[in-house]
């Protein structure tokens, strides 16, 4: 009798304990969720504040150097123009750095927002190539766009899609000393594949994994002779992933590289959203 009572008591307390731990678990989970949400809010607020604090003084630097260069307050001599242009170039470089760092932080904090819209990717590719052509020409490199004017419209974030293409085409031109850069497109298995092929310095097989890491530039032996921060591909590959796309690379060291962006014809949840957070 006593034994069964004790056994019963033990069993009961065991069940109570189980119940309590289940309740505790639920509470802990609730708490963790609230904490995570608060952390998210803090991250958003931090990014917004940083963006604002950095852009406000830049607005003055870019604005006033532009005003002076337009000679609105008065004529400039050549030396003044040259030095003001240096301020302007430096400020624009700083701006693109700030944008890149904010992008990386937003992606890593899960705060990147996308506006999905029907996008004329052919038009985007044409526009981008027109912008980069003069840079290629000034280096004596030809930039060809082949077979890119017939692509179907795709639901994606136009600005971010263009950011990816600009990064990759810019790289191709930057890391090519002679020869050409060729942009082409095709459709394969429900994907649009845009390929950017160059005859540049190429990438060693062992280095290919590194190029998508933030702040990584491949040491080319000589002192750093290529401008940049090493953020372009890190951002591009993360953006691509969040847009449901993929970037792949084939390269032969000293011969050239091919970067391919593969984008699904049907965007993420096509019907249901115009904007989402990745």
């Amino acid at each position: 009798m006593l034994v069964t009572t004790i056994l019963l008591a033990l069993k009961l307390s065991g069940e109570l304990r189980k119940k309590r731990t289940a309740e505790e678990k639920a509470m802990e989970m609730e708490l963790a969720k609230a904490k995570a949400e608060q952390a998210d809010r803090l991250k958003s607020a931090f990014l917004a504040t940083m963006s604002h604090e950095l852009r406000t003084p830049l607005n003055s630097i870019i604005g006033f150097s532009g005003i002076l260069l337009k000679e609105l307050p008065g004529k400039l001599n050549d030396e003044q123009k040259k030095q003001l242009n240096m301020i302007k170039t430096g400020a624009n470089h700083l701006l693109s750095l700030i944008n890149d760092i904010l992008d990386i932080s937003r992606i890593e904090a899960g705060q990147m927002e996308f506006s999905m819209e029907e996008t004329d990717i052919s038009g985007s590719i044409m526009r981008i190539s027109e912008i980069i052509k003069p840079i290629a020409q000034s280096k004596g490199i030809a930039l060809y766009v082949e077979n890119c004017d017939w692509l179907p419209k795709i639901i994606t974030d136009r600005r971010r899609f263009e950011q990816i293409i600009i990064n990759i085409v810019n790289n191709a031109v930057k890391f090519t000393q002679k020869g050409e850069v060729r942009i082409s497109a095709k459709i394969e298995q429900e994907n649009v594949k845009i390929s950017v092929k160059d005859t540049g310095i190429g990438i060693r097989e062992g280095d290919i994994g590194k190029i998508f890491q933030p702040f990584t530039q491949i040491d080319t032996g000589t002192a750093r002779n290529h401008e940049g921060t090493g953020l372009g591909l890190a951002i591009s590959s993360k953006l691509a992933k969040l847009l449901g796309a993929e970037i792949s690379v084939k390269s032969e060291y000293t011969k050239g590289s091919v970067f391919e962006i593969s984008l699904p014809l049907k965007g993420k949840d096509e019907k249901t959203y115009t904007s989402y957070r990745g």
Partner: protein
Amino acid sequence: MKKLILLIEDNEQNRYMETYLLEKEGYEVISAGDGHAGIQKAKERIPELILLDIQLPGMDGYEVARYIKNSPAMSKTPIVAITSYAMAGDRERALSSGCDGYMEKPINPDTFVQEIRKFIGN
């Protein structure tokens, strides 16, 4: 008659710069450093365009836009938002608060006035 633009922007240098660019192009500019002062000035003399910074101390630009668009005397005055968050949702938020246009900082002095003209004419 010069067209009147009201500029609501809390940073003094930015205010000076935007005013300078607009005055050079022949607009008359009045300005305010926060939302309340901005609304006050708009009531005194209704401008033909309001340029509105979004990050303002106290009342933010979204609230200012909503207030203006809800007041019968000013509801037709076009508002162009200028923001330095430059996040994807900002544009939608500005437009849904009643802004008619949207511009990102840093502004480009080569195209700034051109953009403004789309909303106000010469």
